[in-house]
């Protein structure tokens, strides 16, 4: 249902013919030829809420890991053993599809990564992640849109514009370059997490409303089964993630469709009862894994030229908190998948997990700038020069050199 809420951007649904030809000089000539032959696809998935990288790709070889992550730490033994990626890291068992891609050389992980943002606000962190600027609140455009705008007019990627999935275009895809908007048709439902946050607010400020809402929700639970567990769509459910991935893949697989897509999945803010190999986070990771599967299936004709980049605003605390969850942190992981990815490896300059090695004695210390990872993909997959990447795509990022060798 469409309630009081039309799209804020009137141009969103239209693929406009205008293009940012101003930046054509930035395109490397050798890639102009290569791209004519290749027709690359790029998908960026944002995990909103801050993914616990230590529970997604666990450093099981680090002697301090199990102690810090306590009862939710992954392990290579037990009922739900983590999937070993190398001698040091293991993947959450909720992600068998990514494990298969990894073994096929089409999946890679970069660990101990962070943006340049060092505070712990989701909104500001997402703003930095998506705008590509060193600080929050600077611009109303995103680095993925500026990437498209920086490509020469004739390039296929530029000609087809971008795809923004969701009722509104994510910031990462907003800007001057033309954007196609698409949203899966589902009715978003309140998640249990949102309901709990609201009930907590009411408990402190308005017990009458809290009592009424609690009653209303438990009636609903009885009527429909457990909240959240019934797949009813929304970008925080496995079904919703799969649906979004399938739709986006179909659109970018089409000959005349966009070549670059942005999606955002919700629900990663696991402060309480995070779970490890099973539980809340594992369900979300399973949803992400299902999205990988849909992309691989629908994009199979162009899979060899496809790169998927999964990023999140920051990581979570290395130590679990008093409610078996983790709080806002710093370093985390980036997932890379697709036929164009030079995979089969975990790339990490591992900082260690001893108290003095943690960032502020609390978070996984970041040793890799997320912009370096993304710039590496953009340079080698789409052919943008380091100069353009450092000036218009990720302003003031000259220190974060594009990471080479991520693309086949």
């Amino acid at each position: 249902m469409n309630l009081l809420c039309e799209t804020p951007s009137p141009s969103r649904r239209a693929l406009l013919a205008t293009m940012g030809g101003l930046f054509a000089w930035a395109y490397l000539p050798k890639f102009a030829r290569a791209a004519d032959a290749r027709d690359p696809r790029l998908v960026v998935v944002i995990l909103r809420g801050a993914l616990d990288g230590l529970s997604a790709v666990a450093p099981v070889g680090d002697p301090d890991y199990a102690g810090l992550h306590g009862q939710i730490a992954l392990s290579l033994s037990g009922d739900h053993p983590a999937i070993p990626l190398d001698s040091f890291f293991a993947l959450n068992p909720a992600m068998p599809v990514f494990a298969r891609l990894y073994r096929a050389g089409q999946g890679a992980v970069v660990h101990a990564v962070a943006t340049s943002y060092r505070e712990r606000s989701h909104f500001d962190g997402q703003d930095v992640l998506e705008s590509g600027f060193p600080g929050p609140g600077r611009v109303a455009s995103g680095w993925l849109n500026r990437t498209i705008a920086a490509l020469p007019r004739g390039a296929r990627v530029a000609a087809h514009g971008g795809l923004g999935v969701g009722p509104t275009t994510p910031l990462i895809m907003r800007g001057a370059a033309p954007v196609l908007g698409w949203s899966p048709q589902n009715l978003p439902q309140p998640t249990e997490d949102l309901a709990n946050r609201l009930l907590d607010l009411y408990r402190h400020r308005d017990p009458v409303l809290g009592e009424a809402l609690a009653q209303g929700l438990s009636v609903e639970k009885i009527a429909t089964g457990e909240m959240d567990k019934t797949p009813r769509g929304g970008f925080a459910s496995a079904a919703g993630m799969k649906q979004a991935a399938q739709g986006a893949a179909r659109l970018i697989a089409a000959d005349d469709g966009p070549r670059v897509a942005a999606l955002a999945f919700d629900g990663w803010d696991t402060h309480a009862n995070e779970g490890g190999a099973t539980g809340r986070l594992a369900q979300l990771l399973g949803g992400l894994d299902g999205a990988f599967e849909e992309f691989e299936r629908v994009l199979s004709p162009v899979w060899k030229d496809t790169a998927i980049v999964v990023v999140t605003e920051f990581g979570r605390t290395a130590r679990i908190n008093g409610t078996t969850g983790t709080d806002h942190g710093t370093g985390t992981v980036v997932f890379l998948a697709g036929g164009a990815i030079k995979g089969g490896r975990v790339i990490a300059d591992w900082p260690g997990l001893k108290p003095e090695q943690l960032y502020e004695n609390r978070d996984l210390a970041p040793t890799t700038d997320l912009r370096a990872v993304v710039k590496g993909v953009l340079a080698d997959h789409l052919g943008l020069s380091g100069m353009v990447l450092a000036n218009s795509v990720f302003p003031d990022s000259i220190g974060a050199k594009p990471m080479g060798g991520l693309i086949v």
Partner: protein
Amino acid sequence: MATDIQAGFIALNRFGLGSRRDGDLAEASADPRGFLKAELVTPRIALLEAPDLPPTAVALQRLFEENEQRRVTRLSVMRAEAARAEVGPMSPPLAEAEAPSMPVAKQPEQPKEPPKPPLEQQVFRAEAAARLQRAFSARPGFVERLVAFWTNHFCVSTMKGPFVRISAGAFERDAIRPHVLGRFGDMLQAVESHPAMLFYLDNQLSIGPTSQAGERSKRGLNENLAREILELHTLGVNGGYTQADVTLLARIITGWTFAGRLGQLGEAGTFVFNVNAHEPGAHAVLQHSYDQAGVAQGQAVLADISRHPATAQHIAYKFARHFVADDPPPALVDRLANTFRATGGDLKTLSLALIDSPEAWVAERTKMRSPSEFLYAAGRIVGRVPDDPNPFLGALNILGMPLWGPSGPNGFPDTAAAWANPEGMKVRLEIAVRIADRWRDALNPRDLLDEIAGAAASPETNRAIARAESKQQGLALLLMSPEVQRR
């Protein structure tokens, strides 16, 4: 006057339709009472006019014509079927029932246009869209709140059928709005002689037993409108009237009706006094005898009861309950009732008296926004309301407050307890989630909270929104926060 953000917040929310994002809070906080009073003295502020909104008579004339067309079509179909039954005696009755239409050559399927909604629904939607836009643009919206209060006080209901559905908006524009800052007595006269009210409470059916029409037919008095005038519109249920008063008032207003399609009594769709249905003679209401002839008799009763002390008390109580508290401070009610009496029911003075009452500014924010107030406030927060009124109308339906469609003549409930129920809260949360889903990360809920509430927001709400895992979740929390739900 020193800036008072708490008072500015009260002005915008308790009195108005909620903060918008373009500096409302700063302006209201600079002079909370002046901010409200300025709206009251704006010329024509309560009126609503637009080219696509037909006056009552025009709307009803269109409906009458539509009904006539439907009737003619129905008749011709019935005649055709009757004729076919005569020439086709071989058809067994069962087959006839299954295949009522004439056999026709099979035609290729053509894509059909979605059927146009019925005429009354088209008009109703246009009226709703105009209310939505007005509720979004009004600043601070105290006048629109007054319009809503009086429209609910003198409610009609679309549940009665197409007649009220097509005329409810015009009723509000023609009978309520011109008087919300005028005199209660004038509003009362306008309301009780409006075709929508006359039809809603069956007065066109009411016939004086000894009138000309009464002598000729078996039909007689219908007390519905007379009872609600006394019980709901003026004196109140404990206002000191008796069943005899109801019956006598019913006699007095026999003949108060509207002209039909053919316009024999006057212009179709307008109020007319049908002397043939009017019960002749003098009648006494509340021990006062009225011997006027014709429509003047009823008008005189309405004029008297509009100034009755019980009416003043009844209106003052409802007014204070709507704006201040379910159980309003007695001193406030008495002051408003005195104002009402002293001014002969001057509603602008009544509204000013509310603004100047200290109780209205210090009461805890225990009132709950009604569903329509919640949706309006949400639209003002996100900075946009849709042009298409259907989602708004749908949301009002599932929240239990269909536009101009209360289940009875006492209108929608006006207490917090009535709206803060489990189902209602659950549905509000679902709607908040859907609005937030539409906007996703396009709005920063921390900035929004700051703009609409500033220092009046509680630390807990600030914290809950700052800690939200996404802007989308933060927006849902903001829309459900006590700052938005309460007023």
